[in-house]
């Protein structure tokens, strides 16, 4: 009888430990396709900035974080327009850089091509890490993965259960707030983040900015083989623009956007993964003002709205120990509507489709060869092919040499293809007084052929890692605006010209000499050769950032970041200026009160005094702010 009783009791005691826990089978969770490629096997130089570094950098937005990456320049067209750019300041919108957030591009092709507005909308507290591909890679990421590819991975909703509140106040009207709530169970996690970021920009400028954002993320794991991520976000950015002249008066411009992203990843087998991605997004731009020149006044308007819908498929598989393959396709439909920008009330649209594939082959344990390519069809510019070939050679287990060649593209934007901007007198009759832009539609994609040699070394005994890269980037078909004659007017058109040849080398050292101490150096030496003196000044000879993170007694955390750039001139209206050392320091103190954890911190940016930025008469002045953050 007792043993019968035991039989009956046994199933009820399923939550008690038994040998079954040791012998039960488990599904393969971290299959090869779910694992990130180690840095010494990536087909290009990658700098990773993790959450800890973002937090301790004292940065308030992503562009400020990117200056820690070798070769990345940071400028502020005005206080409301921070912008990072790789190697050269060729434009003031970030149109030659690609930015992905969890696989969704934030590149706006509505007007002149823009990533800087999208970057401003991101909430730093939700970011898990930023992976920056230093170089170009249209073979994997498609058009616009041109000079730098920034991959931003936001935190999984399963990692942010609970409530987080953060408030920052400081000089220059700095007033930032973040509120986040996360919840869920083993099968599904959810998060809602609301954030706003406000400041008054620079002294003596009309450049206040007000960024607000609502972001939802759901991570579902209906089975162990499936990951479904759903994101919905909406936000707006209002910013001061203008320089106070008749043609460019002070005004408030804005962007609003909303997006839906759904990504489903399924592990077909431990060696195979399938991914389906759907993106739909809308953006609304508003920048409208009255320009005056003497007695003439006209309405200048670049407002409008754009939409993008995108469906992508990707299949990755490991054929055997030596060979991995990724292939897939994508279809994209974009529309834009703006009477003043395109001189039509109609919606204009374009289709793009992409097919891509890459092969990773390990013929010998020390060698890894990767070849890939993407063919893109574009309803305006036709087909382009972007190939890539890299070889990684592990000289020793922790020392890798890499050589690569790749061709990338920047697709012309709607404006460059279809823009038609005419100015009319405000007073009746509405006579045309100027024709600022008329696209012929003949512009071709910019291309960039990059040759690179890299070294990645890890000296485990002294906790030092080194990443160095030498590069030659040959740009062709660079898009310029050039006036042509149409009747009595001389509107600009987007035309292609041969581009510059950018060459140089960059490196980063990341050293943890003692526990609690981290020192980083990121530096790039760049030269531009083009024959055009103005173009040759678009990159600094040297651009350096030094970061020191130190844990102090009493659990205080100190950090200092120093950046400096030799003289150069940012395109689009920048002056030839020197950016001497800017030193940011931060002191933080994490604490815990019962189950509530928190942190107080004080950051002073440009503690060594202000410095000129972008233009002669514009300064980034010293500013201090304090942050209180609570997690419970």
């Amino acid at each position, binding site marked *: 009888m*007792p*043993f019968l009783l*035991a*039989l009956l009791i*046994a199933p009820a005691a*399923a*939550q*008690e*430990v*038994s*040998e*079954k*826990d*040791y*012998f*039960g*089978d*488990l*599904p*393969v*969770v*971290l*299959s*090869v396709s*779910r*694992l*990130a*490629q*180690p*840095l*010494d*096997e990536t087909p290009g130089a990658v700098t990773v900035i993790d959450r800890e570094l973002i937090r301790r950098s004292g940065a308030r937005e992503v562009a400020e974080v990117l200056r820690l990456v070798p070769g990345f320049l940071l400028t502020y067209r005005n206080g409301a327009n921070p912008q990072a750019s790789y190697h050269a300041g060729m434009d003031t919108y970030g149109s030659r850089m690609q930015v992905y957030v969890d696989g969704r591009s934030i590149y706006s092709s509505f007007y002149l091509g823009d990533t800087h507005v999208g970057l401003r909308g991101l909430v730093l507290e939700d970011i*898990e890490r930023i992976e920056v591909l230093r170089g170009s890679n249209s073979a994997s990421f498609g058009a616009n993965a041109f000079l730098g590819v920034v991959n931003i991975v936001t935190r*999984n909703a*399963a*990692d*942010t*259960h*609970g409530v987080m509140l953060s408030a920052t106040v400081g000089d220059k009207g700095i007033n930032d707030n973040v509120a986040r709530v996360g919840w*869920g*169970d*083993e*099968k599904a*996690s959810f998060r809602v983040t609301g954030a706003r970021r406000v400041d008054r920009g620079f002294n003596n400028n009309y450049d206040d900015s007000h960024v607000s954002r609502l972001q939802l993320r759901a991570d579902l*794991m209906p089975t*162990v083989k499936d990951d479904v991520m759903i994101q919905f976000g909406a936000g707006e950015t209002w910013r001061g623009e203008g320089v106070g002249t008749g043609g460019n008066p002070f005004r408030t411009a804005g962007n609003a956007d909303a997006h839906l992203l759904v990504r489903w990843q399924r592990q077909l087998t431990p060696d195979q993964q399938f991914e389906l991605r759907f993106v739909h997004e809308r953006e609304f731009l508003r920048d409208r003002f009255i320009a005056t020149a003497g007695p003439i006044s006209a309405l200048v308007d670049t407002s409008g709205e754009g939409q993008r819908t995108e469906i992508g498929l990707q299949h990755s598989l490991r054929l055997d120990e030596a060979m991995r393959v990724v292939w897939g396709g994508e279809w994209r439909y974009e529309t834009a509507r703006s009477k003043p920008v395109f001189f039509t009330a109609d919606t204009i649209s374009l289709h793009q489709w992409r097919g891509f594939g890459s092969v990773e082959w390990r013929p010998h344990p020390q060698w890894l060869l990767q070849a890939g390519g993407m063919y893109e069809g574009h309803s305006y510019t036709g087909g382009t092919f972007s190939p890539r070939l890299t070889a990684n050679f592990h000289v020793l*287990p*922790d020392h890798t040499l890499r050589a690569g060649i790749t061709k990338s593209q920047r697709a012309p934007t709607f404006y460059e293809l279809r823009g038609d901007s005419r100015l009319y007198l405000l007073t009746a009759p509405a006579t045309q007084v100027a024709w600022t832009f008329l696209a012929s539609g003949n512009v071709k994609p910019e291309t960039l052929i990059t040759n690179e040699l890299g070294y990645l070394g*890890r000296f485990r005994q002294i*906790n030092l890692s080194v990443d160095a890269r030498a590069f030659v980037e040959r740009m062709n078909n660079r898009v310029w605006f050039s006036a042509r004659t149409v009747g009595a007017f001389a509107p600009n058109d987007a035309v292609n010209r041969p581009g510059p040849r950018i060459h140089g080398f960059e490196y980063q050292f990341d050293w943890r000499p003692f526990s609690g101490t981290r020192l980083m150096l990121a530096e790039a030496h760049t030269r531009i050769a083009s024959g055009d003196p103005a173009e040759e000044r678009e990159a600094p000879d040297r651009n350096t950032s030094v970061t020191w993170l130190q844990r102090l007694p009493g659990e205080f955390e100190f950090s200092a970041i120093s950046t400096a750039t030799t003289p150069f001139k940012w395109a689009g209206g920048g002056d030839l200026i020197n950016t001497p050392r800017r030193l940011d320091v931060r002191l933080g103190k994490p604490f815990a009160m019962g189950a509530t*954890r928190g942190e107080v911190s004080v950051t002073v940016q440009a503690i060594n005094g202000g410095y000129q930025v972008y233009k002669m008469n514009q300064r980034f002045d010293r500013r201090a702010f304090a942050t209180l953050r609570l997690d419970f």
Partner: protein
Amino acid sequence: MRRRFFTALATACLCLMTYGSAWAAGAVSIWVALSETGGAHAEAAEALRTELDRAQPGRIEWRVAHWSRFPGVKPEPQWVVAVGTAAQRGMQELFAGGATPPPLLAILVPRLAFERIADQARLRGGSLSAVFLDQPPARQLEMIRLALPAVSNIGILVSAESKAHGASLEKAARERGMRLAISQVGQDGLFPALQSLLAEVEVLLALPDPAVYNSQTAANILTAAYRQQVPLVGFSPAYVRAGALLALYSTPAQVGLRGGEVLRQALSGKPLPPPQWPREFAVGVNQDVARSLGIALDQAQLGEQLRQRERP
């Protein structure tokens, strides 16, 4: 239907596997009660029998069967080996009424399960012992130190039951200059406990506890730890396949072998030793995970180094 099949199977096993030499002088009768008749349990039982038969061929009269087949079987044996938790419980209860029950050796049982169900009187009296399935805390921490020399903060995720592992692991960690963080999964679920733990540790040591680690939560924990670049150390080869950086475990054959050694010494007249850990073990490394985390590990070398540390 299923039950009937197992009954038939168990009967067949009993008939087929019962052999011996009852007529031989000095024969010892041993019952081997299995929690399950196949898989790991059979493998451990086989290793135990092989070890004893090798030492004393033909001396032992074996009866090997599912534990539920033994009630009513006469005569009572001189020794009982219970393979697994269910068999241990069944055999303890079978002889619970007797004045002098045959000594019982439980093998392939997790320590916590053994301690939960062990008959305390018999344990004190020296007629109950065990060879556990788990690894000694010192060995677990020594392996982490060998595999990840830079690591000093280790975390464990426990329930109210497995919290009992904490004290011995904490002591072993302290002895090695490491710090053990313990996070208990409470009413509000897995994630709050996991989140706060992953924020402060460099490696996560998984402990067998179905309230914390089951086939659903293992996926949650493995992916969450990987996102934070925190390697997970598992306790079975299944964990290595699933995505743990490495695992330390003893195979059923290794536990069975140790059981055989313990029983051999007991048969030669020595008292039954106290419950103990398996002596032999295996180390598994998931090279894909190691490479992705930028960790260089050699499975064979790691196992050998760990064995060397344990040699006197």
